[in-house]
């Protein structure tokens, strides 16, 4: 047992001996080292591509003959692309707000007429589902605004956002007052809004 103890201390000695030269070298040298961390940050960013069409012109919107003359015609779906849109962070969301087309004649329309044209703006390409806003203006153009928020995009994404304008209709399918009509679609890409 004693001899075993002796053996073990003998074994440890060389270890001490080897460690000594390393510390002797450090003190002998004139160099010194230190560490400097390099850091940076990337801001959270969402950028929408330039809309492929700055103005969607529906042209002449009513039927000029037949049983429904003067009432809205079947207008084709209009598409606008926002190519190369991206968010560099997870948890972004697409919002669409739409304003009904309103006639430039601001006077209240007579009975049987409308100065508003409603439609649905549907944005696709972000999150798991479409984002659709449908306007519901009254015949006199009251309450023309509508907005919708889509589902959360769970990861950073680069892609094209397509906006389709469809289901053009006049409130109560009324006759449309003559004039120029205009509406507005706004697409917003950003972080999921925090409710406080």
């Amino acid at each position, binding site marked *: 047992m004693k001899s075993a103890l002796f053996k073990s201390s003998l074994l440890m000695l060389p270890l001490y001996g080897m460690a000594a030269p390393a510390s002797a070298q450090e003190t002998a040298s004139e160099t010194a080292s230190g560490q400097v961390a390099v*850091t940076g940050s990337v801001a959270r960013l969402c950028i929408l591509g330039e809309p492929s069409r700055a103005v*969607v012109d529906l042209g002449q919107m009513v039927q000029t003959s037949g049983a429904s003359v003067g009432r809205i015609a079947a207008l084709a779906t209009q598409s606008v692309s926002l190519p190369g849109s991206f968010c560099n962070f997870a948890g972004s969301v697409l919002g669409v707000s739409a304003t009904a087309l309103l006639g430039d004649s601001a006077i209240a329309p*007579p009975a049987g007429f409308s100065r508003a044209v409603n439609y649905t703006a549907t944005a696709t390409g972000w999150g798991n589902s479409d984002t659709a806003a449908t306007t519901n203006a009254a015949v006199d153009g009251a309450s023309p605004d509508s907005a919708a928020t889509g589902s959360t995009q769970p990861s950073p994404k680069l892609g094209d956002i397509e906006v389709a304008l469809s289901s053009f209709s006049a409130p109560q399918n009324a006759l449309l007052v*003559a004039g120029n009509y205009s509406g507005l679609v706004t697409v917003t890409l950003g*972080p999921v809004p925090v409710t406080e």
Partner: protein
Amino acid sequence: MNRLKFFAALAGVVISAPAQAQSASDSADFAVVGNVPAICVGGSVTEAGGIFDLGILVDTTTGFLRSDLSAPSQVLAGSFCSSRSSIAVAATPVVAQTFTATAPTGFSRSVDFTATAAGWTTIPASFSTASASNPAAIQQRTTAFSGPITVNIGDFATTGGTGLRLVADTSYRGTVTVTLTPES
């Protein structure tokens, strides 16, 4: 000490990151435009096939024009204009269709009347076939309108004077024309 400061600066960057996130959104607009032309539709006549049937024009005991001539109103249903508009009414006298020669002395082959178109404007448009000018035949409306137009005829008078008798003919015919015109 230097190291301590460095970490403090780093912490500052981390804290400022959420503030930047508030402006991480972007939005894009595009306009949607269209137009509606000025349209007027006269609608359709809904009663009696669009004919004012006056029946026998003369009093069979005297040969003179009946004094009690009348015809039910005709209604132009489904009329509308999508802009400000004018309504015009025009008429031609009721004229013998078979007896086309000049009427003999003491006779006439024509009956004048006045046509009115009401419901579109405050003052009905009216046209008298006996008048050389009919300034009231055109009336303006400043707003779009949709509604029935009621057309009436009346004030019948023998062309040439009440002392003339009408020549016999199985068909006397006149017309009433109502015109809606969009105005810009």
